């Protein structure tokens, strides 16, 4: 029956179609399984990224004050431009738009964006800081056209005294990649972190922790609901040991000079003055200075970025006589009454060693030799002591090792001895070198801060203090040094004479306190005869040192001044010490009377 047959034919084909449908439906069902169950958490995260908008709340960084509560570093509101790439239809067009308003090139902005390549599409990018109000207005006016840009109110670090405190305080910079990638890093790309000085040393305390406001937004970015709020906690304020007034005086002195000055309290190591010249304005760094500006700073004469107080090493010159004198007395090699004849030069090891005073000092004993800075006396004393004992005492005074101040980048300097000579130079130590080292010349290197530390030991009678900048940190227990107290007493008295008995340090004399000190002059080029530094080119002139403390009976301030190519220590360096002592003691008098 044909009709019947054809119906059967149809009926046989239907189940095939049904099977095809079931297979396809099962395939689609398994796709849903894959997307929802296997990849579900990934899409859940994407959905959360869609709906949750994270607004960072910047924690204000801790303020920094000097020892008398004077504000050194402040925060001011800053309008920053941030970009949310996920809202940008065309990134190139977005950047063109921003570049036009900011007056910067698109390439520059692209470079900024490029730094965020690894981070999530949803994390905002900091494009520019410290927008002017008119720039803020333009971005706000174009908000509908360019929803990807937003103005973020942040904090701008303001160094109220600019170059004056640059080397101590340091500055901030965009957080380094290795800090970002460190485990448990609290930094986000684009965050600022202390790069140098106090800002770097106390980063952990100053920084605080940023908060975050997470808002549920709809597809148009309109906030609907608060999802989570984490309050920002401000960084801790910091009180430094610095004395702003003294710092200003010192900086003024260095306006047309190159060098460093440091003042510290020998009783506890408080650093009252730390000046390095020339300086720079750290406020430029707060605004992310561009490459050419940075290059100019790096190439500027006399390297303004260097903190000469602790990063620059020089021979101590005659300041080293303090070490050698103490060593001689402690070791019993000399006593106060032994005398040596200075005829302007002397012959040791078949070589002639000149005294700075061509005419000679005549017969001098130790006190006079210190007061007049007689080189011949110390040549002979050095010869008697030998290099090993000199090095030993130099190290006791803290030379050759970092002082341990909180600021990073401190140089260790160099105290030479035969072992060092063999190891580093690959040659034996010549006895003649000992004679040069005895007056602080030759391969001996110190930083002004080390000299200040050394002077503190002399001043406080043999206690080593660590220079400190954080006023509220508990002072470390001073370390007692194995030095003969009466030797130190003798040296202190002689140093008083340097200033007060028409010695080389006479220009540091003040009425308010009894100043003790020592001048030093470091030859830059080897001189065959006696030439006054004034007649040389700047870079060939001697370096001038002055190391001192006051008052002798009750030492409370150590002042070390180093003037690069300044000429004689007595003329170039000692006057600043006088200024600082006058300021310090008169101000203290005022404070005590009030």
């Amino acid at each position: 029956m044909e009709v019947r047959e054809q119906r059967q034919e149809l009926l046989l084909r239907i189940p095939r179609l049904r099977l095809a449908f079931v297979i396809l439906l099962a395939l689609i069902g398994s796709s849903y399984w894959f997307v929802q169950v296997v990849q579900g958490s990934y899409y859940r995260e994407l959905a959360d990224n869609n709906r949750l908008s994270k607004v960072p709340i910047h924690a204000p960084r801790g303020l920094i004050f000097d020892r008398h509560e004077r504000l050194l570093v402040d925060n001011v509101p800053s309008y920053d431009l941030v970009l949310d790439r996920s809202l940008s239809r065309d990134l190139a067009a977005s950047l063109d738009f921003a570049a036009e308003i900011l007056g910067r090139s698109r390439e520059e902005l692209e470079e900024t964006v490029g730094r965020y390549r690894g981070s999530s599409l949803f994390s905002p990018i900091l494009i520019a800081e410290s927008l002017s109000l008119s720039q803020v207005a333009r971005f706000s006016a174009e908000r509908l056209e360019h929803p990807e840009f937003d103005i973020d109110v942040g904090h701008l670090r303001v160094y109220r005294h600019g170059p004056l405190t640059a080397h101590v305080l340091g500055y901030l910079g965009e957080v380094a990649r290795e800090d970002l990638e460190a485990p448990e890093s609290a930094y986000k790309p684009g965050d600022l972190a202390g790069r140098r000085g106090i800002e770097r040393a106390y980063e952990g305390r100053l920084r605080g922790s940023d908060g975050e406001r997470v808002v549920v937004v709809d597809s148009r970015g309109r906030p609907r609901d608060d999802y989570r709020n984490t309050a920002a906690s401000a960084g801790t304020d910091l009180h430094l040991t610095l004395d702003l007034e003294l710092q200003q005086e010192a900086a003024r002195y260095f306006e047309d000079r190159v060098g460093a000055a440091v003042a510290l309290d020998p009783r506890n190591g408080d650093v009252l003055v730390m000046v390095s010249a020339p300086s720079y304005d750290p406020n430029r760094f707060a605004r992310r200075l561009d490459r050419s500006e940075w290059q100019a700073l790096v190439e500027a004469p006399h390297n303004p970025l260097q903190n000469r107080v602790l990063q620059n090493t020089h021979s101590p010159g005659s300041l080293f006589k303090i070490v050698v004198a103490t060593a001689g007395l402690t070791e019993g090699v000399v006593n106060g009454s032994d005398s040596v004849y200075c005829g302007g030069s002397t012959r040791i090891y078949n070589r002639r060693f000149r005294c700075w005073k061509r005419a000679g000092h005549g017969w001098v004993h130790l006190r006079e030799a210190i007061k007049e800075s007689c080189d011949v006396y110390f040549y002979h004393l050095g010869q008697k002591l030998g290099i090993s004992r000199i090095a030993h005492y130099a190290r006791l005074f803290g030379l050759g090792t970092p002082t341990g101040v909180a600021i990073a980048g401190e140089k260790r300097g160099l105290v030479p001895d035969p072992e060092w000579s063999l190891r580093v130079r690959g040659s034996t130590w010549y006895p003649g070198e000992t004679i040069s080292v005895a007056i602080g010349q030759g391969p001996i290197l110190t930083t002004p801060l080390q000299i200040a530390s050394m002077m503190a030991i002399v001043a406080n009678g043999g206690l080593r203090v660590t220079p400190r900048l954080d006023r509220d940190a508990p002072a470390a227990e001073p370390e007692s040094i194995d030095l003969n107290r009466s030797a130190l007493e003798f040296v202190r008295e002689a140093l008083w004479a340097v200033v007060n008995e028409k010695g080389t340090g006479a220009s540091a004399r003040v009425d308010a306190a009894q100043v003790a000190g020592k001048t030093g002059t470091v030859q830059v080029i080897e001189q065959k005869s006696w030439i006054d530094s004034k007649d040389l080119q700047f870079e060939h002139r001697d370096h001038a040192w002055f190391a001192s403390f006051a008052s002798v009976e009750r030492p409370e301030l150590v002042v070390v001044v180093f003037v690069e190519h300044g000429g004689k220590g007595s003329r170039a360096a000692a006057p600043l010490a006088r200024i600082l002592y006058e300021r310090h003691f008169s101000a203290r008098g005022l404070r005590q009377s009030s």
Partner: protein
Amino acid sequence: MRDTSPLAVFASLPEERTFLRTLADVRWGVLVTAILLAAIGLATVHSASAEMEVDYLPRHALRILLGLLVCAIGFGIDYQVLTKFSVPIYIASITLLVLVLFVGRAAGGARSWLGVGSAQIQPSDVAKIAVIVLLSRYLAGINRRHLTLPQISLALAVVLVPMVLVALEPDLGGAAMLLPPVVGMLLVAGVRWRLLLAGAVVALVIGAGIWNFVMLDYQRQRVKTFVSPQSEPLGAGYQLRQSKIAVGSGQLTGRGYMQGTQSQLRFLPARHTDFIFAVLAEEWGFLGVAVVLILYALYVRNGVTVALRSRDRKAILLVVGLLSGFAFHVLYNTAMVVGLLPITGIPLPFLSYGGSFMLANFFATGVILGIDFRRYVNR
């Protein structure tokens, strides 16, 4: 089956025994799944439109009620009458398609809607049923094991006329949707393998031609976006991406009813119409997806049973045509929402908000039930 049917009680009445027994014997499962799906759709449309200016719940509910009425009409009309008037119906639907080109209301870039007072119908939905009815009559009359090429060509010509008209609106998706029922009917009516293969090649060539010369930029863009959705996360790929996020974030058990962030926070466009299934997937998770897919499978299964126990070629082909169109809609829409196929305006039967499509599906359901009801009468 017969005894457990809820209408079995009427079957025991002595008088109208044959009628009632036959009535009780109808595959009501088709209607039950349709109503369940419509109810799920109603709840989901409510959730999807919670953040819109209007709540589509009342309108959608009204359409379901209208749908049930249309279903009853489809059930009531003898399909023999339908096929008898298939040519006038076909011509009328073509007239409507021509009319819509001139006086139609535009929506989404295409003039595809005809307004009758406040009601709107999409003539392509009418045309689809008209084509199925006409072809079931024509193909049923060819009582052979396989169709000849001229016969196939004629069948294709019947569908090509409304397809071209719909494509002119321009609604390419709607035009394409006219084809699956015809393909289903042809396959069941009998097409040789080599013809099928040749047809596939021809379709490919025509497809390439359409891509190059017929498709508009936005249509091409949609396909391109499908190929690489990440290329433009905020441009044309947005819809696809948001849909996938909605589906995926539903995970196994869903965010909870009215709790889907993608839909409630308006990230997902077209969420009450073509992407209603994404809303369901987000709020009910894979479990909800599975339930709905199983309901669709049951609908088709019940429909196929009707076809298989029908004794009339016309009826078989009619059911196959209606089910093929239905099945294709389900497959395409669910595959599109999960990102397997390019986005095109293909709604999901019984779930998506949309009047004339809802009515068309209920009408088809009624026709299928009517065929089952009359299976002893029309031999």
